[in-house]
């Protein structure tokens, strides 16, 4: 009996390494292709929506999450026209902002589209698959090993942090904000020491179970014809963004 696909990437029959390459190529195309024509923006957004719907990703949530980049991009866009100021007066600054309106729009649109592409990738491929993709793309082993452990220990750290926060809340529910800031350091130190102790135990247990540097995976994704087609489309689109 055939097992039903478990991840969005499996639904699309694509390998994580193919999707990672395609996403990076698209991001590079979007960044290098600045400034963008409206057609380019519509193409990127349509692609994200279509792929998201086909892979049964929560598209509205994806768009909502992508707004994370707006505060920093908006801040930088707000400062950008200042370099065009020829005279430091109200009219000079206003003129600079009129001239720099296009650049401001670009500085907000570009990072937003890039974040959308990367969040779509993250929604399509689970963390473990992306780690496997990095391994297949010959990222140094010391590095992938560290990412593997990071993936493993983020959960451990989360558990320890929740326990410590509960403990602080139960002991000092009315602690002032200033004292809380001072407490962060000690709390972080306690997290480090506890997680390190637990991490060493986990590492010993992993070694005893035959851990060889990468986490075992159920599915093996090979870079196939569909992946090659996906990367080719991404390259063509990226090239089009740059040239047009």
């Amino acid at each position, binding site marked *: 009996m055939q097992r039903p696909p478990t991840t969005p990437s499996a639904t699309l029959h694509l390998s994580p390494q193919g999707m990672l390459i395609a996403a990076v190529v698209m991001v590079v195309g979007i960044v290098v292709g600045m400034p963008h024509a409206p057609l380019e923006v519509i193409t990127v957004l349509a692609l994200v929506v279509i792929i998201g719907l086909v892979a049964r990703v929560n598209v509205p949530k994806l768009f909502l999450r992508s707004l994370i980049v707006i505060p920093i991009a908006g801040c930088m866009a707000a400062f950008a026209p200042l370099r065009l100021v020829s005279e430091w007066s109200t009219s000079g600054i206003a003129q600079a902002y009129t001239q720099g309106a296009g650049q401001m729009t670009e500085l907000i649109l570009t*990072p937003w589209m890039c974040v959308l592409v990367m969040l779509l990738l993250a929604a399509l491929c689970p963390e473990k698959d992306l780690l496997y993709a990095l391994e297949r793309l010959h990222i140094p082993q010391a590095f992938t090993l560290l990412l593997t452990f990071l993936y493993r220990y983020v959960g451990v*750290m989360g558990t320890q942090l929740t326990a410590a926060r509960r403990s602080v809340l139960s002991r000092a529910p009315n602690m002032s904000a200033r004292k809380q800031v001072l407490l962060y350091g000690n709390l972080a130190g306690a997290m480090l020491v506890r997680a390190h102790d637990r991490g060493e135990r986990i590492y010993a247990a992993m070694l005893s179970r035959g851990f060889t540097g990468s986490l075992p995976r159920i599915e093996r994704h090979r870079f196939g014809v569909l992946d090659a087609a996906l990367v080719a489309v991404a390259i063509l689109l990226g090239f089009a963004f740059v040239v047009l």
Partner: protein
Amino acid sequence: MHIPDGMLDVKTFSTLWAGGGASIAYASWWIRKHLDGSKIVLMAVLAALIFGLQMLNFPIAAGTSGHFAGGALAGILLGAWPACIVMTAVLLVQAIFFGDGGITTLGANIVNLGIIAPFVGAFIYEIFQRISNGYASKIGGAFVGAFVAVVVSSAAVALELWASNHAHFFAALGAMTFFHALIGIGEGIVTAGLIAYVAKVRPQLLDDENIPNGKRSLKSMSAVLGALAVIAAGFSFLASTHPDGLEFVYFESGIGAEFEEAAYVSMAPLSDYLLPGVGNETLAGIAAGIIGAVLTGALLFGGVVLLKRRRAQAVTGTGTAETTADAVIAEAAETTAEAAIAEAATTAVAGTAKAAQETNKTKE
């Protein structure tokens, strides 16, 4: 401080990718050479901690908020090169999974948060340790190191934004350093608090004598920081086509009056960051950026490897008693590391033994 995609132009982000990539390649090699499997655990735990702490925002002035960066902390606890790898891992996860920081700007973020911050933080902490090895010195060094690391990294961000012609140099520098000076206080408090806790509860994490050649070497850290300063100075003169910032001062003050810009620009093979013979200006810019990135990366990596070989030859040749002792320690550590890796990778017997030892410890 994570720069998103689109904030840096091709020449800037490709140059920083080259610099960051070469440094990470060297750091990976350094770790493989000097650290054993158990240190990977500490690195991973620290990466997870920094990753978690970066999500905690604390309020600063004018309704804005800042978050912990962690570069200095990693530099103090692990040494500068392992810290580079830890910070790169954190930045990579954030860029791919959370859209925090860009892909094209990952090189810049690695340079700012993964190289400058750990080196500056560890350097300042080490200076404090040379003055006094006491508890107060550890806390003071951690606070000042973290504070300065954040401010210097933010200045680097301002330099990169200006080099991309997306910001006025002095406006960006003023805004970035002002707000990050406030964030730096929070960073300093958290780092000092953490170091204070570790110094009391687990002091061996701070004074690890098993890591040879580099964790506490002021010379090597000074060399890297000096190289970074020279690169930043060169970068600021060459990167921008607009006469603002340093270039403005240089030419307007009359210091550079004797230099005709056209004279040296026309002699350069990739003048104005364009590959000659390519009609499309954007493609010519990309091609020039790629060539520049590959050349810079190759030169940096080659230089570091050459320096390392010469040093190794000097040690094995006519070294003093001290350098010979260092070499013996390094060799012993290397053998131990290799043995540990071999043990971790192949022998289930050794794994079972470790598990048995662990069980005994728990029972005790």
